[in-house]
Every structure is written in structure tokens, then in C-alpha cells.
């Protein structure tokens, strides 16, 4: 009996210790999310004595107007492109950081990698605008170096959006891949070499499979926010910068149709979760 009391006492203590964390989670995630879910199901915001009723109208709007689906697909494609570019650029960087460089130089390079985290994202995006626009830094620089005239004006193109997003999200892949690569025992690579394996074999059969969890984590960290991104498309994309995320933003800040914005957000959430759910068993199999 005494034992039982001790255990339930310990459990009570545990609950007491954990409760602030759970309360915080509830407040920070579930409350806003429930509020949004509620907004997405009403005709009007129930503020200032407005008339309101429950409705599915906001969700139906998505299916009745093909533009939304088109834009959602455009955003998913943007997410995939940015993710793939980040993986292709970030993984080699992480590999060099983790396996080729030692000591002080590594710390210095690491600081440079996380430098974008330290600056305000708006500042970052506007800096890219200055670089990429016609007669901008890139244009002037190239023309100063090259013997012939070139006209690079990447501003207000999809390329500009991709460049801006890749720059913002690259550190995630580098960090997650770095951690995964760091955990690979150098003896494994030595062992593979002793069995006659060259660099491509080691990369393909050993290093990539073993760092897959890091790559996946990085990909998810990038894909999810990029699909809903609105700042980079708006500032760097100009007229071509209409994406699913910008449409949602418009509903909240310009058109002031919160119920529609909330419904569109939930559809985005559902689609992203669906994509992750479909991708995860495939990745598990690839790793085995």
C-alpha cells in the first residue's frame, strides 16, 4: 500500500512539474488554432455586434474558384523547388563543415552559416531586392567585370523569389545535415575505405543513408513554411508574386475577409499534413 501511495505521489509531482509546459502549449497553439477554426466556420466575425452564423461557405469557396487550387499547386511547387535547391546546396556545405574542416575555421564558418538568423527577414529581403533589380548591385557588378554588356534584371521573377527563399531557409538544412553528419563515426568511413570503396560509393551507400534523418528534418523545416510564404513572393516577385500565401495574407490584411482566410489556411494545413504523411513511409523504407 505504501508503495502505491509513493508512486501516485510521484505521479502527482510529475503532473505538477509538467503542467506549466502543457498550459503554455495549450495557450500558444491550441487556443489560436481553435479560434481560427471557429473563424473559418462563420459568416462574419462575431465582433462589434455583427450578425453571424455557422457555415461551410468559406470552404466551398476554395472548391468553387479554381484559382485557389492553381495557386496552392504553384505554392507547393515553389516549396518543392526551394527545398530541393536548399538540399543540393546545403548538404555539401554541411559535409565540408562536418568532415573536411577542423578546429577554429569550422567555428568561424559555422557562425557565417547562421548569420542570416541574426538579421531581420525584411531587411534581408530588401537587400536582395537591391542586389537583383535592373541596374542593381548584381547588374553593375557583372557589367564591370564582363567585357560585353549584359542585362540582368532578376527582380520580379520567380528566380528572385527562389533566391530569396533559399537564402532565408538554407541554414536549416545546413544545421540539420551537419548534426546528422557529425554523428557518423569516422571509423565507418575508414572501414568502407579499407574494403576498397571509393568516395562515390561511400557517399551513396553510407553517408547519405546515415544522414537521411537530418535531410528529412531540414526538408520539412523548409517545405512547410515556404508553401505558405508571402513576404518573399510579394517583395521579390511583384506581379508574378501571387501565391497561395499572399492570397491568405490579403484576406486578413487587405480584403478583411477573415473567415475565408482562415478556411484557406486550414486547407493549406491539411494539404501539407497530407504530403508529409504520404512522404514519411517512403522515407522510412528508403532508410531501411
Amino acid at each position, binding site marked *: 500500500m505504501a508503495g502505491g501511495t509513493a508512486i501516485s505521489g510521484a505521479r502527482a509531482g510529475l503532473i505538477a512539474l509538467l503542467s506549466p509546459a502543457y498550459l503554455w502549449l495549450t495557450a500558444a497553439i491550441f487556443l489560436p488554432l481553435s479560434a481560427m477554426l471557429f473563424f473559418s466556420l462563420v459568416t462574419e466575425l462575431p465582433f462589434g455586434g455583427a450578425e453571424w452564423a455557422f457555415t461551410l461557405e468559406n470552404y466551398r469557396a476554395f472548391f468553387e474558384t479554381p484559382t485557389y487550387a492553381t495557386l496552392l499547386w504553384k505554392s507547393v511547387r515553389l516549396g518543392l523547388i526551394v527545398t530541393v535547391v536548399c538540399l543540393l546546396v546545403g548538404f555539401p556545405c554541411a559535409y565540408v563543415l562536418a568532415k573536411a574542416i577542423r578546429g577554429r575555421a569550422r567555428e568561424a564558418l559555422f557562425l557565417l552559416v547562421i548569420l542570416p538568423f541574426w538579421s531581420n527577414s525584411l531587411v534581408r529581403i530588401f537587400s536582395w531586392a537591391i542586389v537583383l533589380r535592373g541596374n542593381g548591385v548584381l547588374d553593375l557588378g557583372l557589367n564591370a567585370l564582363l567585357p560585353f554588356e549584359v542585362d540582368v534584371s532578376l527582380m520580379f521573377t520567380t528566380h528572385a523569389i527562389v533566391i530569396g527563399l533559399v537564402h532565408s531557409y538554407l541554414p536549416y538544412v545546413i544545421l540539420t545535415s551537419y548534426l546528422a553528419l557529425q554523428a557518423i*563515426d569516422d*571509423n*565507418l568511413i*575508414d*572501414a*568502407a*575505405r*579499407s*574494403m*576498397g*570503396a*571509393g568516395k562515390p*560509393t561511400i557517399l551513396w*551507400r*553510407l553517408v547519405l*543513408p*546515415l544522414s537521411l534523418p537530418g535531410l528529412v528534418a531540414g526538408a520539412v523545416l523548409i517545405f512547410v513554411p515556404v508553401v505558405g510564404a508571402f513576404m518573399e513572393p510579394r517583395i521579390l516577385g511583384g506581379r508574378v508574386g501571387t501565391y497561395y500565401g499572399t492570397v491568405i495574407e490579403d484576406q486578413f490584411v487587405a480584403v478583411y475577409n477573415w473567415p475565408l482566410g482562415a478556411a484557406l489556411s486550414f486547407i493549406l494545413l491539411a494539404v501539407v499534413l497530407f504530403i508529409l504523411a504520404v512522404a514519411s513511409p517512403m522515407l522510412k523504407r528508403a*532508410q*531501411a
Partner: protein
Amino acid sequence: MARVSVEGIVKRYGTVAALDEVSLDFEDGGLFALLGPSGSGKTTLLRAIAGFVFPDRGRIRIGDQPVERVPVEKRDIGMMFQNYALFPNMSVADNVGFGLRVRKVGAAEERRRVGEALELVQLEGFGGRKPHELSGGQRQRVALARAIVTNPRVLLLDEPLSALDKALRVDMQFELRRIQREIGITTILVTHDQEEALTLSDRIGILRDGRLVQAGPPREVYNAPADLFAATFLGEANILPGGGAGIVVPEGVAPGAVLAVRPEAIAMTRTEPEGAGLSKCVGVLERRVFAGAMATCLVRREDGGEMKVVSRDQDIPAGLTEGDRLWLSWPVDKTLAIPPEG
């Protein structure tokens, strides 16, 4: 299989000479143990033979081929690592078959040879498991199978058994010896454990500060150490005073040589032992430590020097207790004459 030789190799890290003019021959099909204190260059020598590090100077041959500038991948060696280094993402069969697949031997051939190798290490039927589903001893065997499955010219082992507990280690020593004899592969083993070196190998080499102190068959090195370091590193040695009353200097000993005797060569008696060809001295028993079948006694000689004696419990005179006076004796031909340093 091949004979391996290193000739005058030097490897420096900054000001530290990890290897300093080391020359050694490893016979075809033999098992050679490299011994030495920590930091003496054992791993560096092994990795130089493997091809992970290139020596600054000197020559390395595997068979008839000079390999100083050949990278590991091209050297056709098998290596076993201290922590096994099994690939965690692959099954046991894929681990063992890795080297075969790199050599593109074909699926059927790969399956056959992986099966053979697993049988050799007594792990038939374990091919489908992942490394984390194996015990320490089983991982060890997989690592060994993986190292020999490609029929490499030389097998290199860096402290292969140090992660195992004592009982398992002794089992694996026999196992390793059996397999090594069975396939007749030239094997070089680095170890901290002198007992392991003595029981396993055909020849041993003792390294100190990057230099080779002595090499030869274990019995020879044990019975005729090249210097004081070799005498005390491999087993223990009681240093004798330069000729006392009963201590006989063996014939033909170079002037300046240090005399010593191994603890297990000494007999203890209450009375003065009779007989020709014996060295002897008197001492007082200071301490007696019982350790299973053997007992260790510390005896203070009359001239103040300390002698360690290891003998079977029943060979110690009955009723001998600490503080008793006794005689120590040993055959003159068991006296080690250690050449002076330098």
C-alpha cells in the same frame, strides 16, 4: 596472402615523431602482435601499413608491391576496428558483402562468399539481422568476417578485443587464432594486453616512443629482452645487484649488463638450498598476496632491494608468514642478462 615489410619509416606530427625509423618484417601467414605503451606509435604503424597515413620517409611493401603512395582503397587489406565500425544502416549480410559488392563479384558469388564467411565465424543464419540486434561478441565476429571475406593480402587489427569482457576476450582470442590459421592470412595485431600478445602471436614487436625496441618470437623476447624497457614491459623482472654473495653471474655476460630474474623463476625455502647451478640470496618476507592458484610475495633482500616472487600456493613453505627470514633461489641459466642501454 603476402609478406609485409616496412623499412625505415618515419612519421612526424609536428615535433612528435610517431614513428622513428621503424623497420619490421611480417612473415607470410604469421600472426604478429605490436605491443607498446600508450602513444608509442602502434596505431600509426598499423594505419601506415593500411594506407590511412602516408609515412614521411621509408618504404612499405605488401607482397612485392611498394605501397607507400597507394591509398587504402587500392591496397587490398582487411581491417578490423576497435569499436567494430559495423554499418548501422545495413544488415549483417550487407555489411559482410560490402567489400564484395565494391569489387562487383556478382550477386550469386556474393551470397556464397558471405555465407562462407559467416560460417567461418560461426554466425550462420544471422545474415538478416541489423548490427544493433547483436551482442558484443557477435558484432566482433561480423567485423572479422567482413574484414576477411574479400581474401585480403593482410589482416590488420587495432585492439580488436579490448571492448570485450575478460571471459569473452579469451574465447575470441582462440577463435581469432583458429580462423587465422585456417585461412593462413598474414595478420598484424595491435594490443595493450601483453598476455594476449604472448598467447596469440608467432612474433611480437615492442614499440616505445615511435621506435622499435625488439622484435622476435614471444618466448625469445621474454627470455632475452633487448633492454631494461623490454624486460619490464613484457612481464616483470627483479633487478639484481651487480653480483652479491650467492648471486652467480652467468658466463659470457657483457660488462655493464644488468642482471634480472623473472618472479616465477624464483623458489622460496626456509633453509639454504643445496645444488649446483643455483643463484641464491636471503631476505625477509614483507607481504604475501593470495590470488587464486598463484600467490605473489614481496621479499626484502638483505641489501635493501625488493624481490617479487610468483609461485603456486602449495610450493610456498608451510606456515611462512610475513616477517619470516627465507632463502630465494633460481637456476643460474634463468638469470636475464640485459644489455646496457645505448
